């Protein structure tokens, strides 16, 4: 676990952000600041708009109001990884092929695909048809995608879904290392997440809209 700073200084800041679906605001007036090496945990009951907020930050849904900016981000490259509910895994490609594809299309700037597979505990399954993976294994493959291309910001939607206890530890380890390298992360989860350095972790509690 090298703690060298890989990512250049970056500051995520949202202010007065209001996001929602189909014109209805789910969460209003969200504001946060996030700097290198820090993570933000989105918490809140089911249906309060955690997924919606993450999609808004990822630029897939337009915000209803307010602003979200990344100061210091290189405008020519993509600076965020989104890892959503769905794992984006293709049956008919082997596990290794699937991962290598994403590495190449996003730039193979991170770990080598095989290494990443070993890291998430799928080292022995590299030749398996990815459609046959169990729920938890699919999730691990989706996480491996974050490792093969280096991007400073991770947006994670329930990263620990379907993972066993070893998988929970894996997520903690990955997050620890990413933050150690100067990365940033925003994660929505219902599970407890503990980092080795708790000061790196902020919490944003979403409430049911009034």
């Amino acid at each position: 676990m090298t703690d060298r700073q890989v990512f250049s200084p970056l500051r995520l800041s949202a202010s007065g952000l209001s996001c929602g679906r189909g014109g209805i605001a789910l969460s209003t007036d969200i504001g946060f600041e996030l700097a290198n090496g820090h993570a933000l945990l989105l918490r809140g009951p089911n249906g309060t708009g955690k997924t919606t907020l993450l999609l808004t930050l990822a630029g897939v849904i337009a915000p209803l109001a307010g602003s979200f900016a990344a100061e210091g981000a290189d405008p020519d490259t993509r600076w965020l990884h989104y890892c959503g509910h769905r794992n984006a895994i293709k049956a008919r490609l082997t596990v290794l092929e699937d991962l290598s594809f994403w590495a190449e299309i996003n730039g193979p700037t991170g770990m080598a695909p095989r290494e990443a597979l070993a890291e998430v505990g799928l080292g022995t399954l590299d030749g398996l048809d990815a459609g046959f993976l169990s729920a938890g294994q699919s999730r691990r493959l989706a996480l491996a995608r974050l490792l093969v291309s280096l991007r400073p910001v991770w947006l994670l939607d329930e990263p620990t879904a379907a993972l066993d206890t070893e998988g929970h530890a894996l997520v903690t380890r990955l997050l620890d290392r990413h933050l150690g390298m100067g990365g940033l992360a925003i994660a929505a989860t219902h599970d407890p997440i503990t980092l080795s350095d708790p000061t790196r972790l902020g919490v944003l509690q979403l409430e049911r809209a009034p």
Partner: protein
Amino acid sequence: MSGFAAMLRRELRLSLRGGGDVLTLVLFFIIVGAIVPFAVGPDRTLLAAIAPGIVWIAAFLAMLLGLERLFRPDHEDGALVLLRQAELPLSAIVAAKLIVHWLVSAVPLLLATPVLAVLLAMDLDSFGRTMISLALGTPALAAFGAIGAAVTVSIRRGGLIAPILIAPLSIPVLIFGVGSITSPQSGAATLFLAALSLMAVALAPFAAALAISSAED
């Protein structure tokens, strides 16, 4: 550039591997052509007269119906959101998909055309022209189709909606395609067909990429 190659490789693998997708489309093409004699009767002169048209309609339908697999699977498993955020621009991704779509749907149709030519009592001359006109016209069908598929990708149970949107827009392809086989000014028709294909292929990746990235989630 290696991203583009990776995209091509992935699409090729997905289409060719185990799936029998290619075979399915070819069979559909042949079946559409082959049921015509059952429906209009086995009169050979009548069949020969309408044969180029039938082959083109079969190709038209097969190309339009094969569209489903262009973006929908990626949308449903969440890959499309990630592709929108890939380092490779979305229009290049669409272009790669388009190329592969053409390779795995139009080329097999071309190879299967002789079968229909025999079934429909085509003569050698119009068979040759049919091959040329299909080769020139199918890129336009694929390109129009890609736009339709992109527009409808976020519709649940989209099914037939892309084909019905795109079919009216593709009528020029059909007209010039058949024209380049049967009409007296077939030269002009062939030229138009080629021009149409060029134009459509050049524009489609951008239009489709625009449609995909303007859809929310």
